[in-house]
Every structure is written in structure tokens, then in C-alpha cells.
């Protein structure tokens, strides 16, 4: 097992990735045999680290660590979608393809977020890090033309329930998991560890 210290890390210098540590691990496979001992195949273990650019969405994921939710808005006066607010964040307006304006919608989310649909699941795919059961919620906001997928951290979801955002500000993952929601009126004491309003 690779130690944390040896895990690969990356930074960007002068527009290029600078890498440190190990980005993959090599381990031998083992034969896969039938009951009678006949060879059918082999196992092929591997461990590797991908680099992933958030590009123009980076501001959204950085914003979560500062308790901010950013959306984007098309401000092109010639576009039929002018004024449309997108959350999930879209870097470009899908209609006119002009770069959309980044706007802070944290207050809008706090005041108008409502559960549009939800599910509760105890099953996950490999690599899940959310607490089980996961309460997926789809959150709609007044004046926003899209519906954000996220998860509820406190209580039981219902369609139409008012919810407010919470943010993982301690040990953030810099992923969508840093944003969660709780029913309106939830006290601080009920928030999961590491999260704040």
C-alpha cells in the first residue's frame, strides 16, 4: 500500500503540470483457474492517479470552500436565453456560446432552495465516500432554469421541502461533495463534522 507521502501531487507552473510523488503502483497479478486447475485468465491489479482540470468551473469548487455558491448567467443581449441563470454552473451559454457571467447565488440558494425530487439509497458504486444511506436531492431555485443534484445531510427528504446549503470548510475535498443541504431551521449542532452554514 502506498503511503500518503508517496501519493502523487501536482501543481501548475507556467501553464504546465509539475508532478511529485508516485502516480501509479505496479503489482503482480494472479492466475484465474477453473475448478480442475485449467487456466482461464489473470487478475490485473493497478493503481493510478489521474490529473483533472476544472477549467472555467474551478471558481465554483473553490467557492464552496469559502461558503459561496456560484452560478452563471447569460448576459448576451442578442441571445434568446439572456438572463438565464445556470446551476450547475455552465462556463458558456448553451444557446449563444458566449462566455457566461459568474454570479454569486449563495443568498438566493439560502432563501429559495426547494427539493424537486429525491431518493434514498444504501447501495453505491466503488469509491463512494458519502455516508450511507445517501439521500440524493435535486434542488430547484427561484429564477434558475436548471436543477442542481446534491445530497441531504440531516433529516428525511420530501418533495417541496425547503433546504439550505452547508459547506465542508474543514478538510475540503474540492469536489461537489463539499456542498450539501439541510432542512431550513436545522441548528448548527446537527451539522455533520467539518460542515458549516
Amino acid at each position: 500500500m502506498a503511503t500518503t507521502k508517496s501519493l502523487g501531487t501536482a501543481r501548475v507552473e507556467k501553464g504546465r503540470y509539475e508532478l511529485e510523488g508516485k502516480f501509479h503502483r505496479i503489482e503482480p497479478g494472479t492466475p484465474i483457474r477453473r475448478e480442475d486447475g485449467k487456466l482461464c485468465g489473470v487478475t490485473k491489479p493497478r493503481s493510478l492517479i489521474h490529473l483533472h482540470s476544472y477549467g472555467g468551473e474551478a471558481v465554483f469548487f473553490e467557492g464552496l470552500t469559502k461558503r459561496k455558491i456560484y452560478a452563471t448567467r447569460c448576459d448576451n443581449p442578442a441571445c434568446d436565453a439572456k438572463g438565464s441563470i445556470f446551476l450547475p454552473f455552465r462556463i458558456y451559454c448553451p444557446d449563444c456560446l458566449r462566455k457566461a457571467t459568474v454570479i454569486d447565488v449563495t443568498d438566493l440558494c439560502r432563501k429559495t432552495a426547494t427539493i424537486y425530487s429525491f431518493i434514498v439509497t444504501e447501495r453505491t458504486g466503488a469509491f463512494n465516500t458519502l455516508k450511507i444511506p445517501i439521500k440524493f436531492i435535486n434542488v430547484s431555485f427561484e429564477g434558475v432554469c436548471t436543477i442542481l443534484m446534491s445530497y441531504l445531510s440531516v433529516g428525511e427528504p420530501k418533495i417541496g421541502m425547503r433546504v439550505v446549503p452547508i459547506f465542508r470548510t474543514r478538510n475540503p475535498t474540492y469536489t461537489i461533495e463539499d456542498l450539501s443541504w439541510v432542512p431550513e431551521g436545522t441548528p448548527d449542532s446537527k451539522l455533520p463534522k467539518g460542515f458549516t452554514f
Partner: protein
Amino acid sequence: MIKFSEMQLKIPKMARPVFLVTGGMSEFRRAFPEKKTEELCIEALTMAAELINMSPAELKSYIHTAYYGHFADHFGDQLLGEAVIHDRLGLDPLGNIGIKTGGATGGSTLWEAFKTVASGYSDCTLAMGWERMDEVPTDEGNNYIACAADKDWETPLGHIYAGYYAVMAQRYWKVFGKEEPSFRETLAKIAVKHRGYGYHNPFAHGGMKITVKDVLNSPVVAYPLRALDCCLMSVGAACAILADEKTAFKMCKNPLRIYVAAGSHTLRVADRRNMEIPLLPHETPETYKDFSKRYPGADRYPGFTSFLATRMSAYYAYRMAGIQNPLDDLDVAELHDAFTISDVQSYEDLGFRPYGQGRDYVESGDCYHTNPHTGKPGRLPSNLSGGLIGCMHAVGATGIMQTVELMLQIWGRHGEIHGDPKRWEAFGKKKPEDWVDLQVKGAKRGLAISHAGVGSHVTCTIVIHPNHLLKQD
């Protein structure tokens, strides 16, 4: 509200008619520890040749280009898998290309092969699809499938695709199911039907006799969806051979006309913006008058309750083939029942019922081979193969398997192929003593839907006996 231009809504026009000459399939299983993908593809192509009394070599001699559908390179751990299969099929130096559109990969592969013949580029094309989903454990497979969601905004949330579907089921249940427990039972009836039809299909690996109670008692995957509401994860291959009229009739006596159209919509359900409902030929604006009053919560189209991509694929395909009303003009259908809820959603997108009334297609008995209420043939039987829930979902092969099933139905050879005890034996199975021939008597026209993700890509394939065309070329 978003709108589409006239150019975007143009009905596709082909330069010449396209025919489905033959097709074939391997057996489908959860795993084939002792077979490589190429073995499965060769089995499918060999079956296609045998159905028209050709040797594989003879059939290959007609093929001019090849389209290969397999969704997930990472499942099979092989990039350029299409090059491997093309070589193993001995089809060099023909031009070939890989197709990937998630769950719609099989249908999209047919779409490309179809256009190639229609354009005149090739007189005969191969559409071959497969998936290798047994090289990782199921939870890693679920993660791989979830990678087809948006990797920044969705995949990290549970790494499970069923969850992204279940939110649609929840919303549908509230808006159109009016939160009635009986709607949950309607979903269960679909699972019972498809598992039950799969029981009579030797190619299938999910066939079983179950009850509504079994479905409702099966483990919750993502509430309200339960294990028996979900499609299978499969390995296998399927292929189809398409050709122009002259070549098709040279290759076999009874080629069938084929039309394929496609639609798309956002990868994330989250991004669906509100729009007017695109109408099918048998619908009018009156059909959806006061819609949101009749169904409180149905204030967005397609919202979380419908698939625009399916509606658009039918919008194009129905008009290409001359279909006015699918219930009147079609005899058999194979739908993409990734989950029972998506089957219901598709009934409405395809106009089998108006939006909001999909469950009636099941409750009326129209969807069955034999209507359980009347004992007479169902009006438009669907998923007699067992579909994705009862037969297989070897992703790249699925849309092609559906089309092969339609072909056998329209040829009147469904019973011959599915009922042959030697075929059951060759797959290591025993033909059930209570096996039922699910041939739809007099089937002339069929439809297949191949569907990706939560509706990102959808193809609509229509197969028609050439003596029963609905529209002049």
C-alpha cells in the same frame, strides 16, 4: 423556454432505401470466464450467416464497411477494441469505426451503418456491438457506469447510476402516479413481464418466473427502485447486416426495410430547460391542453418525467417511416427498460399513451403478448425478448439485439429460433417444459428504442416488411 429551428426539425431523407438483411447474437451471460469477446462476436456473425443460409465467409464477402459499438473501453480494458474485433473477424482492409453513445451504443451503431448504405457509400454494412462487463466486480462496474454521468457534478455522488434514475421515478410517481401505491405495483408488473418473457428466451440470462410481490420485496437499490426493477449487467454480442435493395435481395429472399433516427438531450438531468412538447403525428396541441392543471407539478417539459431524446428520435423516425399512430401501425416493440420507470416514461415519449398516462399501456394489457384481461393478443406487445431486465444489457449489443428480435418476429421465425432445443443445449440450458412461443402472429412492423444515460442519446429503429410499407419512397 427553448425552441428549435425548422432546419433542426427537418425530417431526415435518405438517398435510397435501406434493408435489414440478417442479424445474429451470442448467448448473453453475467460473465464468460472462458470466452474472449472475439469469440462472442464470431458467434453472432455466424448466426447471422446461418439465418440466410450463407457461410460466414460468403456473408463477409458482401460487407463494405463495418461499425462497431462498445460503450466502455475501461470495462474491457482495451482501447481500440473495434480494431481487435475487426481483425479477428477477418475484415481487413475494410474501413471501420467504433461507436460510443452509452446505453444507446447499439442503436447508434445501427444508425451509422444505416446512413452509410442510405448515402450510397456502401452497398452492405456490418453493425456489430458487444460489451465486456465481467472483468470487474459489480460495485466497480457500477462506478464505471456512473462515470457516464458528469464526473464533476454527479459521479462523486454515490458512484451509482441507479440513483440518478430513481430521482426521476420519485418525481414521476408524485406527478403522474399521484403518489398512489398502485403505481409502484404497475412498475412491478413490468419487471414480472420482462423477466417472464426472458424465461422463454435461450439467449437471455435474466429470465425467471416472479410475482409482483417478489419485485416489491426485492432489496431496495435506490428507493423507489428495487433490485428486480433494474436491468441486468451482461456480456455478449449482437450484429446486423444492412444493405441497399439490390444487394439485399441478392443476399436473401426476405430482407426488411429499416429506418433509424436519433435524438439527444443533456447528459445531466439537472440541465433540462423547460420547452414545449414536440408533437407526434397523432397528437395535437389539444392533447396537452391544461396539462399542468391536470397534473400538478408537470410544469416543466421534459422535466424529470420524460425523455426529450426519445421523443425526438420518434418525432423523426415516425415521419420517416410514415407512422401515424404507433398503436395502430406497429405490431411489436422492444423498449429500453434500463429500469421499470424508464419503460413507462418511454411509452409516453413514443406516444403509446399521452404524457401522464403511460401506466395504462401496462394496465390495459396492451403491452403483453397475450392480454391478461381478454386472453387475446396484446395490441402492441413489448419486450418479448425479455428486454434489458429479462434478457440482457450488454450495452453495445443491446440496441442490435432488439433489432434482431424484431427481425425474427417479422420473419415469423421467432419460435423456430427461440424454441430450438439444440440452441438451449448449446448454451448449457434445458428448454423449459412450459416454454411458450412468443411469436406475434402476422407481425409486419416493429420498433426498437436504444437509450443512453438518463436520456442523453436515444435512437428509434423501425423495421417493416417491404410489402407493408406505410410511405412511398
